[in-house]
């Protein structure tokens, strides 16, 4: 057992309101530079939709991630030692800037400095690459809120195994539903970007599992862009170096939440430590398709198990980190309550970002309500107009079968196509709602509520805990971050007198393009 610690995340999709505050916070800190304008370390996509870059989930196009051979070995789909070195002069699987979008701004000065004319001056869009006027054809969030559905939502790669009828049903105007999918780097346990880098510039930090690109070693061989199935490594065309989300590691080291998480308005984001067994990575990543998710989640260890604690200590994991692992909200969501799943487990990178699937837009059906209102209390009745989201509980879990978004679609994203697993998570979320309805509205008996909880392996205490963590958790409960130890912090090891009068510590070169 090789116990290591990993900073991992949970995004609760039911709470995401699609405000893009996370995106803006990240943009302003990290990618507001020449060559990085088109990069979004954090972005929020509308599902169904094609995302950014367009159709990134379709690995027939982008060749990202790992693939499993019949013999059970895994290899990189579009990169690797043979393919990577043979394609080094021209990488046939590299997305070009148009697959993302050509970054642009507007000539705002034209509005104020234009000569007097008969017509109003306009601010024309100009490319941030060439500086020339362009027609904007694409943006980082072009299909937000289902805009351009025929072009975008209809071409969602996750619809590939849905029948034409199922797809039609999904896109009926009265039926149509969507939810948001915020994405950052997954800081995977089996990162394809690291494995694909010919220079060895990309690495996983042993202490906290953050995946980083060493800017001094990157030589622009561009294989990481192909290999990352989530398309979360980006090539900076100006400096000639690849860049990616760094989980705001300077903030994490000092115990602060990353900028995207700190600024999250819906409070959907949770960050905490998971202890995992590095010896199991290879077998988990090469597990068969139907046991992939289970094997992935099996890697994470119980932080209360004395054997795990001892093994962690032997491996240099600090007591504060072990304590953080015990209080980790991520551990609770993923291992204790089992309501969070990784995104696209089939890419086999073992991502460390888990999603609590959205229940409301998915399960609620809109129907003409003909329920007997007499059982409801007066407040609930007042809300119950004729057409309403039908979250009725007469038939517990009944609506899972006629969800607005087919279970198959949801399973394609979060459970590697395993529909019962997906239904199980949605059932749990529904059961927690039933429990809360029992507590607040009171039209559900305790016996019925307990039956619903028991049906999906929860009890009153865990339902209350899920509710607390989902709705009421304060900052320190959502983010349990063990700060770096002072005695180990890098800057403490240097004499400040040595660098007095100079620019400071760390990476001091300007990120200027090589000659």
């Amino acid at each position, binding site marked *: 057992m090789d116990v290591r610690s990993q900073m991992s995340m949970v995004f609760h999709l039911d709470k995401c309101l699609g405000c893009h505050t996370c995106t803006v916070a990240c943009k302003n800190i990290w990618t507001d530079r020449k060559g990085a304008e088109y990069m979004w370390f954090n972005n929020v996509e509308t599902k169904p939709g094609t995302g950014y870059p367009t159709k990134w989930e379709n690995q027939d196009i982008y060749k990202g991630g790992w693939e499993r051979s019949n013999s059970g070995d895994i290899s990189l789909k579009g990169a690797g*030692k043979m393919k*990577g*070195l043979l394609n*080094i*002069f*021209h*990488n*046939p699987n*590299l*997305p*070009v*800037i148009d697959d993302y979008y050509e970054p642009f701004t507007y000539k705002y000065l034209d509005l104020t400095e234009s000569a007097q004319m008969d017509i109003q001056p306009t601010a024309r869009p100009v490319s941030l*690459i*060439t*500086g020339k006027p362009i027609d904007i054809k694409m943006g980082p969030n072009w299909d937000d809120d289902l805009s351009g559905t025929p072009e975008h939502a209809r071409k969602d790669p996750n619809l590939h195994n849905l029948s034409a009828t199922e797809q039609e049903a999904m896109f009926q105007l009265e039926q149509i539903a969507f939810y948001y999918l915020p994405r950052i780097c997954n800081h995977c346990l089996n*990162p394809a970007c*690291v*494995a694909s*880098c*010919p220079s*060895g510039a*990309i*690495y*996983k*930090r*042993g*202490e906290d599992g953050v995946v*980083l690109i*060493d*800017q*001094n*070693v990157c*030589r*622009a*061989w*561009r294989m990481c*862009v192909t290999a990352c199935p989530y398309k979360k490594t980006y*090539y900076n*065309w*100006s*400096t*000639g*170096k690849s860049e990616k989300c760094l989980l705001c590691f300077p903030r994490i080291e000092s115990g602060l939440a990353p900028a995207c998480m700190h600024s999250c308005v819906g409070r959907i984001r949770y960050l905490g430590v998971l202890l995992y067994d590095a010896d199991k*990575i290879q077998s988990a990543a090469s597990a068969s398709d139907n046991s992939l998710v289970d094997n992935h989640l099996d890697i994470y260890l119980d932080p209360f198990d004395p054997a795990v604690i001892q093994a962690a*200590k*032997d*491996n*240099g*994991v600090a007591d504060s980190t072990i304590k953080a692992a015990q209080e980790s909200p991520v551990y609770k969501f993923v291992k204790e309550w089992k309501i969070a799943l990784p995104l696209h487990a089939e890419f086999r990178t073992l991502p460390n970002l888990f999603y609590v699937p959205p229940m409301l837009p998915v399960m609620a059906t809109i129907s003409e309500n003909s329920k007997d209102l007499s059982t409801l209390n007066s407040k609930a009745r007042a809300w119950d107009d004729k057409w309403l989201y039908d979250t009725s509980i007469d038939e517990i879990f009944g609506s899972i079968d006629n969800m607005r978004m087919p279970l198959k679609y949801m399973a394609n994203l979060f459970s590697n196509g395993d529909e019962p697993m997906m239904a199980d998570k949605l059932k749990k979320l529904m059961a927690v709602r039933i429990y809360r309805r029992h507590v607040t509205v009171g039209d559900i008996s305790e016996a019925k509520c307990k039956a619903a909880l028991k049906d999906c392996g929860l009890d009153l205490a865990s339902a209350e805990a899920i509710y607390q963590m989902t709705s009421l958790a304060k900052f320190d409960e959502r983010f349990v971050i063990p700060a770096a130890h002072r*005695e*180990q912090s*890098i800057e403490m*090891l240097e004499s400040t007198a040595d660098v007095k009068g100079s620019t400071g*510590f*760390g990476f001091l*070169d300007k*990120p200027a*393009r*090589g*000659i």
Partner: protein
Amino acid sequence: MDVILFGAFPYVALVIFLVGTIFRYKTGFKYSSLSSQLLEGKKLYSASVPFHLGILVVFLAHLVGFLFPSFYTSFGGMSLVYLEVAGLIFGFLALVGLVFLFIRRITNDRVQMVTNKMDLAIEILLIAQFAIGLLVAIELKWGSGWYASNMAPYLWSLFAGSPDVVAMAAMPFLLKLHVVLAFAIIFLIPFSRLVHFLVVPLHYITRPFQVVRWNWDRKTIRDPKTSFDDIQRPKNN
């Protein structure tokens, strides 16, 4: 003049090359192949692949002739013809590829934005060098033979510290030009994007796929006997 061009200039070029590339490598960040494939992908394919393939083979052929001259002198008859034709084909590939690359670089708006004077200068120099090289191969036939017997000794004399300027001065003009241009290009390597050929990632072949960097030695970090006084600064800072 010959003394300057063939006696002194090669040394200047080699010293600048050595010092310059090492200095640039130490600063790290500016060492990159500066790929422009993200901005333009399609044309790059039909230009970059033949160019790199061509220059790689031709460069290695020159290197082998320099290091093991006897390898080429062993060729004769039809095998010599095949060798010459192969050389011409790869030289031609390199030339055509680079001309395409040059055209792409000056006609594509986006690629222009990542083009500087040195990129253009080095591409023009290389085009000239390839063209002259092809001319030499056609005009002065059986180059693989006389390269091994006549040129390799001059190059060896350079490294022995006593350049054989007299032998060089007797060579045809085209060949002299080829040699001077070669050293000019070597001179410019540390100031151009050509440095990327020095960091060909062959170590990738033997490396394990996953890379983990520990800031600290995890086996001793919790040991009370570990002194923080003599801990080395982590290499990724």
